[in-house]
């Protein structure tokens, strides 16, 4: 993508969206540069598949372009709205995957297809991904948004359309499950106990 003018790079999301709705193509590029990587990363963490994550990212951004002209100022944060759209798209895809034998019953981490290779490679991020893949969808979403994307609990609550208390509960359960799955791998991954 071509370099963006500073005034667009620093402009607030809503101002950029308004500019885009009024015909400014540069504003769309600024919004894409700002938000597509976040959506892409969330989708990749949720789906574990780069191609699918790209599809979700493109679809989420397309929906943003379509609502741009009717966006109500102050009603929702654009980043939260995009997370919500991406989360819903990921959930839809994960539900469609059900019925595929490999995804029906989660296996223990050491036996999960692909997990051994990931652990053998000694990649902590890959080990985390293997564990994330086995969390229930909403726990996974909450954990990824909080601990990888750095979203606040109220933002996650808005994205998941639930309460902050429910997010705290999802996070607590998600972290406990992840810790149980990963604790035994700390030695292999060069982490002191």
């Amino acid at each position, binding site marked *: *993508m071509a370099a963006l003018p500073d005034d667009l790079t620093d402009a607030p999301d809503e101002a950029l969206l308004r500019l*885009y*709705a009024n015909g400014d*193509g540069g504003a*769309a*590029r600024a919004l*894409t540069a700002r938000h597509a*990587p976040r959506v*892409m*990363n969330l989708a*990749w*963490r949720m789906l574990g598949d*780069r191609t699918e*994550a*790209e599809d979700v*990212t*493109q679809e*989420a*951004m*397309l*929906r943003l*372009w*379509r*609502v*741009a*002209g*009717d*966006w*109500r100022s102050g*009603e929702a944060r654009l*980043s939260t*709205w995009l997370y*919500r*759209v991406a989360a*819903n*798209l990921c959930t*839809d895809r994960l539900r469609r995957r059900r019925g595929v034998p490999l995804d029906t019953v989660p296996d223990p981490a050491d036996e999960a297809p692909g997990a051994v290779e990931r652990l053998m490679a000694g*990649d*902590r*991020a890959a*080990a*985390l*991904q293997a*564990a994330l893949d086995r969390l229930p969808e909403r726990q996974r979403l909450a954990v990824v948004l*909080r*601990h*990888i*994307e*750095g*979203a*606040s609990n109220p*933002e996650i609550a808005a994205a998941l*359309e639930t309460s902050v208390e429910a997010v705290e509960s999802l996070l607590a359960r998600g*972290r*406990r499950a*992840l*810790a149980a799955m*990963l604790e035994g791998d*700390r030695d292999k*991954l060069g982490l002191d106990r």
Partner: protein
Amino acid sequence: MTEKPKETGPTDAVLEPFFAAARAERAAPSAALMAAIADDALAVQAGRAAAAGGGVPAAAATAAGAARPASCPGRWAAFWAGLGGWPAAATFASAALFGVALGAASPAPGALFPWGAGAVAAEDALFPGFGDLLAEG
């Protein structure tokens, strides 16, 4: 918006090195994806401009299950469409108008049905007995 979560207990101490590794390893969108997104943006923009030029408001697409940040067709619009919309309303209005005209004209018996009272009598002959039932209460 990025906010590094605080560690709150032994669970977080176990997980933080994994989260740190994951934060460092991000799936960046490819140049082709960024170009495709930009193309989408321009296409939607062009469509919106064309629709505005034709006097038709651009449709607001909404995310599946996501909050609607903008006005969108409401339940009444869906209900109206379910009834058949304007074509159904026109048909209904025509039928009502015909009924009113019929009542106002008060035509003589047989004027509207040129096949005459004989046909009605023949129909009665096909379904005898109902009049008797009514008469008996």
